[in-house]
């Protein structure tokens, strides 16, 4: 992907918004990839958490918000616990989720009415209480 870097792009509004919601300094990231290396769900992600961080830093809002990375994050905090720069990456992933879920048009990640029969009945309460909080606006 060819990206033209400008001062405006690096100091972009989108990154500021993600920083505000997550309370994290994204610019501390030096792209070591520790988060992706330890992520238990990285195998199913379009791109790793460290790549999404880079997208945000470069102001690539559309690229950052269309990958499945933050939807697959299970908030297990392994990345947070191992980040050598002290960035709470799980909070960044949650902030990206929030950016989408807080839009005016409801863009939920899951559609409860489309769940197969008996699916919810099988799950423990904590699974759908936390799942609905993470996936619904």
């Amino acid at each position: 992907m060819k990206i033209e870097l400008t001062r405006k792009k690096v100091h972009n509004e989108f990154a500021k918004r993600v920083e505000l919601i997550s309370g994290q300094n994204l610019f501390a990231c030096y792209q070591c990839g520790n988060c992706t290396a330890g992520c238990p769900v990285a195998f199913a992600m379009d791109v790793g958490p460290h790549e999404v961080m880079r997208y945000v830093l470069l102001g690539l809002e559309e690229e950052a918000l269309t990958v499945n990375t933050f939807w697959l994050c299970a908030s297990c905090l392994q990345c947070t616990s191992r980040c050598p720069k002290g960035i709470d990456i799980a909070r960044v992933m949650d902030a990206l989720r929030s950016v989408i879920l807080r839009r005016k048009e409801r863009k939920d990640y899951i559609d409860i009415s489309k769940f197969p029969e008996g699916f919810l009945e099988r799950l423990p309460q904590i699974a759908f209480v936390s799942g609905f909080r993470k996936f619904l606006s």
Partner: protein
Amino acid sequence: MDYLYFPGCTLYTKAKNFDQTARNCSILLGFELKEMDNWTCCGATFPLATDNIMALLAPSRILAKAKQEGDTLTTLCAICFNVIKRTNKLIQTDQEKREKINNFIEMNYQGDLKVLHYLEILKNDIGFLKLKEKIKKPLEGLKTAPYYGCMLLRPFEEMEFDDKERPTIFEEFLLALGAQPVEFPYKIECCGSFQSVGSPEVATECAYRILSSAIKQGAEAMVSTCPMCTFNIDHKQVDIKKKYLDFKSIPVFYFTQLLGIAMGLDIQTLGFDQNEIDPMPLLREKGLV
């Protein structure tokens, strides 16, 4: 001594076996879990967006109400423990959020409650040496993989529970019961958690990795502290078997069920009907029933 106890939603329904065995074992160990009045669901996730105060209200109400009844609050479910303990820490340390929360819930709570996990009572208040003396039926030869998951441990600065990469409390517990803990590299790896709602196949894969790693290291059973982990690593073994035909199931116990066996509780009271993989064949093989 009695401990004020917060069961949480899942321990009243899908994980009754966890709740019941913990209560029954505590009586044998000389303390009682006194259930707090009018508890609600904790929300099952600690909000990671810093401006999400709403999701802090349920755990804050639980804490404020518990404070009226005592000075400690004990939990069993690792997720409840995580959400309630982190909220408590936040109320202690963040004055602005504390005021906002207190204004909203119309109570005055300062974060001065101690949030405990049942394992901490066993380790610190009773002591594993004392526990060992009380064991009637040592779980000799039971090769058990201690599965911590994430919520008990992380973030370790806030949970202050055990080492962030090499926790040992479960191993110490298993040794006290006479069981043989199995070391395996996935013991602090996430089970996929609520992805069992959003992307069930991803959670199945996570569970498969954890289980197969433990089995490879010789585990005959696994032990858990969390109904969410238990769903993913026990109940989802049905889905794993559909995908990986040569996968051989192993039973997953709540740690209180193993404690119950070792303390000599009646097998009928251990609630194995709620375990997906029936532990009875293994227990018979080991001469424990």
